[in-house]
C-alpha cells in the first residue's frame, strides 16, 4: 500500500509521532509547513519537506491535491488553520482522504462539516487510554500489543479477492478459530454498505468478492490464511 502519496501539513511535536509511524510502515509522504526553520529541521532529519503556505489554492494544486495526492493530514497548530486547510482541499478534490487533528472538542464538528473524513483528538484518545489503563488494564495491554504491534499478535483486514474459495460461503461456516487459529472481529458486507458488522453470532453474512474481513491473529497465521483464500500480495 505504499503507492499512495501522503501530504502532511505541519511539522511539530504532534505530527512527529505520525511521521515516525509512516516511516515504519514505509508510506510515501511529503511534509509541508509555512515556517522555513521547521522545513530545514525536517530536511536535516532526512525527510521530504517543502515550504508552503496552506492559504493559497494555487500552491495546493501545484502540490498535487486533486491529482496524485491521495491522503492529506492536517496537523497545523490551530484548529482554525486546519478547518481552513480542510475546506480548501475538499473544494479541490472530492475524493481526497482528509484526516485532521483536533485540539478543542468543539472544533471536531466544524472539521467534519468542512469535509474531513476522519478527525483525531489526541487528548481524547489519551484520556480514554488512561481511563482504560485504570479500569481495564488487560484490554489496554491487549490493544497495545495488537494495534501497536509490540507482539506478534495483529489486527488486519482482508479484502476477499475475485474467484476466492470464500466466495458464496457464510461467515458461520468460516470457523476461523479452529481452522486457522484466527479470531474474526467483524465483516464488511458490501451488499449492506460500508458498515462493519461485529461478528457476535447474531447475523450471518454471505461473503462475496470485495467484502472485507477484520481478523485478529498471529502474523504467520494471517499470511497463511491470505494465501489460502487467494490474496495475491
Amino acid at each position, binding site marked *: *500500500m505504499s503507492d499512495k502519496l*501522503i501530504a502532511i501539513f505541519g511539522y511539530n*511535536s*504532534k505530527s*512527529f*509521532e*505520525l511521521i*515516525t*509511524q*509512516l516511516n*515504519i*510502515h514505509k*508510506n510515501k509522504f511529503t511534509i509541508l509547513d509555512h515556517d522555513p526553520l521547521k522545513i530545514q529541521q525536517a530536511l536535516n532529519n532526512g525527510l521530504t519537506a517543502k515550504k508552503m503556505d496552506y492559504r493559497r489554492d494555487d500552491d495546493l494544486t501545484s502540490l498535487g491535491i486533486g491529482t496524485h495526492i491521495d*491522503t492529506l493530514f492536517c496537523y497545523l497548530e490551530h484548529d482554525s488553520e486546519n478547518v481552513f486547510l480542510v475546506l480548501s482541499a475538499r473544494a479541490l478534490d472530492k475524493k481526497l*482522504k482528509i*484526516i485532521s*487533528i483536533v*485540539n*478543542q472538542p468543539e472544533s471536531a464538528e466544524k472539521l467534519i462539516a468542512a469535509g474531513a473524513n476522519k478527525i*483525531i483528538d*489526541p*487528548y*481524547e*484518545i*489519551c*484520556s*480514554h*487510554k*488512561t*481511563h*482504560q*489503563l*485504570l479500569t*481495564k*488494564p*488487560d*484490554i489496554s*495491554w*491487549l*490493544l497495545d*500489543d495488537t*494495534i*501497536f504491534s509490540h*507482539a506478534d*499478535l495483529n489486527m*488486519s*483486514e482482508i479484502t476477499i479477492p475475485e474467484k476466492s474459495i470464500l466466495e458464496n460461503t457464510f461467515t458461520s461456516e468460516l470457523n476461523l478459530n479452529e481452522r486457522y*487459529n*484466527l479470531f474474526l*472481529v467483524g465483516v*464488511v458486507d458490501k451488499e449492506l454498505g460500508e458498515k462493519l458488522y*461485529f*461478528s*457476535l*453470532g*447474531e447475523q450471518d453474512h454471505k461473503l462475496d468478492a470485495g467484502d*472485507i474481513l*477484520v481478523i*485478529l491473529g*498471529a502474523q504467520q497465521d494471517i499470511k497463511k490464511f491470505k494465501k489460502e483464500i487467494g490474496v495475491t500480495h
Partner: protein
Amino acid sequence: MLTRLILYLAYTLKTSLRYQSTKGFFRNVLTNSQCKLKSYFDLFMITLIISSVSLLLYEVENKAPEWTVFFEDFVVTVFIFEYLLRSWLYSDIHSIIIKQHEKAQYLNTPLHLNKVIKLIISNKSGYFFSASAIIDLLAILPSYRPLRILRVFLVFRLFKLFRYSQSVQIFTGVLINKRLELTTLAIFMGFLIIIASAAIYTLEYPKAGGQIDDLYDAFYWAIVTISTVGYGDITPTTSGGRVVASTLIISGLGILAFFTSIIVAAFNEKMSEFQDCKIRANIDKLTDSIILCGYGRVGQEIAEQLHNNQQNFIIIETNEKLVEIAKKKNYIILHDDASKNASLEQAGIHRGAKAVLCVTDDDIINVYITLSARQLNPTIPIISRANREDNVKKLYQAGANHTVQPFSIAGLLATKYINHPIAFEAIHGILHDHTDVKMDALKVHENCFLDGTTLIDANLDQYKTRLIGVSTNNPIHTEHKNSYKLRNQHFYFNPAPNFTLQANDVLIVIGRNLSIDHLQDIIETSRI
C-alpha cells in the same frame, strides 16, 4: 497503700478497652466534627436551649404550667452531664498519674500523691477556666429559681448556642483574625468619644442654654451621634456644640465605613479558606479515590469519565481558570501545586487514594509529580502522560507504572487508518465506547460457575459474547499454545475448547454491552 491503689486503677483504665472505647465514643459525639452523631447531638442541644430559653422568657411575665419545672430540670441535667463529660474528655487523669509514676521510677524517687493531685488540678482547671466552659456553667445557673437575679444569665444559655453552630464559629474566627485592625479602630473611636464628650460638656452645660447636665449625658450623646443613630433626645443648641456634632457625625460615618470594610475584607479572605477546609474535610471522607493531577484537556475528559463511572476522584490544579471550571461542575478540586508533597498528602495519597494520574501537559512536571507520589507511597499505581517519546523512559524511572503518549497513540491510529481503515474503526469504536459493542475483561472469581470448567462446557456463545482470549498468570495453563507475553501476565489467544478456567483468570471478551453486563452479573451472583 493508697498510692498503689491509685496506680492500679490508672493502669487498669489504660489497658481497659471498654473504657477507651466509651471515652472515644463520647469524644466523637461531643468534639469530632466529622462524626455524624455530633451533628445530631448539636441539633438536639440547640433545640433544648431554644425551648428552655423560650420557656424562661415566657415565665418573666406569665405563670408557667407545672410540667415546665420537669422540663427545666431535664434540661439542666443534660447541661450538667455535658459539662462533666467535657471536663472528663478534656484530658486523661490516668495518663498523668502513669507519667508521673514512670518519671518517679526512672529517677528512683518516691511518688508524691499531693504533687500528682496538684498537677491534675492545674491540668483540669485549664478546662474549667476556658471561655466555653464558663459559658456552659453560667448557662446552668438561671434555673436556680430562688435567685431571680440569676435570670440575667439566660443570655449565657443563648451564648451556649455558639458551641453548636459552625457559622458563629466562623464569624468569631474572622473577628479574631482582624484583632489588630479592630483594636486600632476601637482605640481611635474611644479617643474620639472622649474628646467629643468633653467638648460638648464644656460647650453645652445648662447655664449656656444646653441640655447636657453631666459627663454621663455627654458620653451618651457622643455615642448616639458617632454611631449616626442620633435619637435627638439631646441636641446641641450652641453654635460651638453644633460644630462638635457635625465633626462627630462626619467622623462617625468614616468609622462605620472603615469598620464595615474590615469585616467584609476579613470575610473575603477567610471565605476561600473555609471553602478549602470544607473540601479537605470532604476528601478525608473519601475512600478508593483517584488523584488526578492536572485539569487541562486530558484531565477534563478523564474527570468526566470517572464522574460517569461514579468513581471518587480529587483534582489538583494550579491554574485558577481551570479550577473555576471544575468547581462549576462540582468536582472536588484542590487549588494547589501537585508537585508539592503536601498537596498529594492532602489528596489522600496515604489514606483513601487507590491510584494517581499525572496528566499535565508538561512532561517535566509529570516526572516530578510521579517521583513525589512514588516516594510518598511506594505501592500506589501511577499512570503518567508523556508528550514526548523520549520522556517515557524517565517517567518509568521516576516510578510510573504505565505511561500514555497522546501524540504517539494518535499517530499510530492515524497510520492504522490509512492502511487499515476498517480495523481502525473497530479499534476506535472500542477505545471510545462509541459503539454498542465493547471489549471487556471479566474476572473469573473463586467458586463462580466458571471456576474449574472447560471452555466447551462454559459455552460463552450462549451469552452472545465471544471470547478472544484469557489473560492469566496461573502456571497451570502453560501446556496450552498460543501464549503471548502481556506485561506480567500471559495471554492465551484463541484458547482450545479443553482450556480449563481457573480462579483469577481474566476473560477478554467482545460483545454487546447488554450481553457482557449480563454475563458479568451471572459470574458475580454465581459465586455466592
